[in-house]
C-alpha cells in the first residue's frame, strides 16, 4: 500500500492505494465520488472521463498512483459555486442531451475539455472530439447540440436528423 495525495475539485484528498488501484476506483470507492462512471472498463466508452492537470483522461485507464500530486476535476466539481448547473450542464438539460444519463458525466467532462481548447467548435469538431465517448440512448444529436449551445453558438440551424 502507498499513500497518494491529490487535489480533487479544489480540495486536498489522500488515501492508501495498491499499485493496481485505478484512478476511477480511487475516486469512486475511496473518495465516494461516484459521479465518475465506469461503463466498459476497457477505455472505449468514456463514461469515466475526468480532467487530470487540465486535460481529459479516461480514469479507468490510469493508475491512481500516476495522479499523485495532480489536480483532478470530476463531474462533482462542475456545478457553479451556488449549486446551480454550469453552462454545459444546463445546456444538456435544455437540449435534452441525456436520456438514461449514464454517459453524461463523461460527456460533460469531455465537452468542458473541448471548449477549453476550442471555445467555438464546429459541429464536426464536436463530433470528432466525442469519438471516445459512447452514448447508447440519444444518437448523439442532442449532445452535440447542447455542446454547441454551451459554446454560445446558435443551434437553431442544427435540425433534428
Amino acid at each position: 500500500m502507498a499513500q497518494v495525495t491529490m487535489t480533487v475539485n479544489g480540495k486536498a484528498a489522500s488515501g492508501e492505494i495498491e499499485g493496481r488501484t485505478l484512478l476511477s476506483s480511487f475516486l469512486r470507492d475511496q473518495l465516494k465520488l461516484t459521479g465518475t462512471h465506469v461503463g466498459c472498463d476497457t477505455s472505449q466508452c468514456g463514461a469515466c472521463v475526468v480532467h487530470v492537470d487540465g486535460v481529459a483522461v479516461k480514469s479507468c485507464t490510469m493508475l491512481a498512483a500516476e495522479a499523485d500530486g495532480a489536480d483532478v476535476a470530476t463531474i462533482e466539481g462542475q456545478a457553479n459555486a451556488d449549486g446551480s448547473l454550469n453552462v454545459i450542464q444546463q445546456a444538456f438539460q435544455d437540449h435534452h442531451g441525456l436520456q438514461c444519463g449514464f454517459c453524461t458525466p463523461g460527456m460533460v467532462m469531455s465537452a468542458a475539455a473541448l471548449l477549453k481548447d476550442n471555445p467555438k467548435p464546429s459541429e464536426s469538431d464536436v463530433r470528432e472530439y466525442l469519438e471516445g465517448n459512447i452514448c447508447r440512448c440519444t444518437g448523439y444529436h442532442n449532445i452535440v447540440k447542447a455542446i454547441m449551445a454551451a459554446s454560445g453558438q446558435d443551434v437553431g440551424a442544427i435540425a433534428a436528423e
Partner: protein
Amino acid sequence: MYNFEFAKPSSVADAVAALGEEDAQALGGGQTLIPTLKQRLASPTKLVSLKGISEMQGVCTGDDGALCIGGATCHATVAAEAGAYPALASTAAHIGDPAVRNRGTIGGSLANNDPSACYPAAALASGATIVTNSREIAADDYFQGMFTTALDEGEIITEVRFPVPEKANYQKFVQPASRFALVGVYVAKFADGVRVAITGASNDGVFRWAEAEAALSANFSADAIDGLSLSGDDMISDLHGTDAYRAHLCAVMTKRAVAAAA
C-alpha cells in the same frame, strides 16, 4: 488485475535500475498496458512509470533538421508541437480518441509494436531512429514482427528521431470499434526515394511495400500504383476484414496517401 508495485523514477538511470528487477515492466501512458493487465495477459511484479522523467518529454528539432520526440511524450503533445513535420502531427492527432491521446506515449506505442498501431508505420516510412538508454536503432532494424521489436529486456525508448520528408501523408482506414487501423499506409517522399510503410495488414506487423516504393520513386503519383497489388496470403484475417480485403485496402490507401501528399 493482479497487484504490482509501482515506481515513478525521475531519471532514465533510475528507471533502468528499477527495470533491472525481475518481472519489472515499463509503463508509458498505459493505454494498452492497463487494459492488458486487466485481462491478466501480463502480470509484472513491478510497473515502472516513465511519465515522471522530464528528459523524455517534449518535441524539438535536432542539428540535422530531424524532429526529436521524447519517448514519454503523449500523442496530444506531438499533434500540437510537431508542426515541423505536419504529416506526423496529423498522424498523432488521429490516434485513438482525445482522452487516449492525452495519456498514450510514442515510446509506449513503438515498444508495444501493435500490428495495427499508427506510430510504427510513421517511424518505418520516415526512416526514424529509435534512441534507447543504450543505443540507437534504425527503424528498418527495429520492427521484428507482431508485438516484437529489437528492444532488450529493460531497455527504454528515450527518444525517437524523425528525418522530415519533402512530402508525406498517412491514410488510416479506421476499425471503428478499436480506433486502430484496419489498414494504415504511411508514404514519405525523400530526395533519394519514397518509403511506404503499412500497418494493420500483416501478421508480421508493420512492413515496407518495396514494389510501391520503386514505382513511386520513379513517378510520385497515385497512378504509379495502378496494377500493383499485394498478396493477402500472410495478412490478418478477422471478423473486421478478410486477408484479401486488407490486401486490397493496402493499394487503395497507398494511392490515397500519395494523392494527399502530392
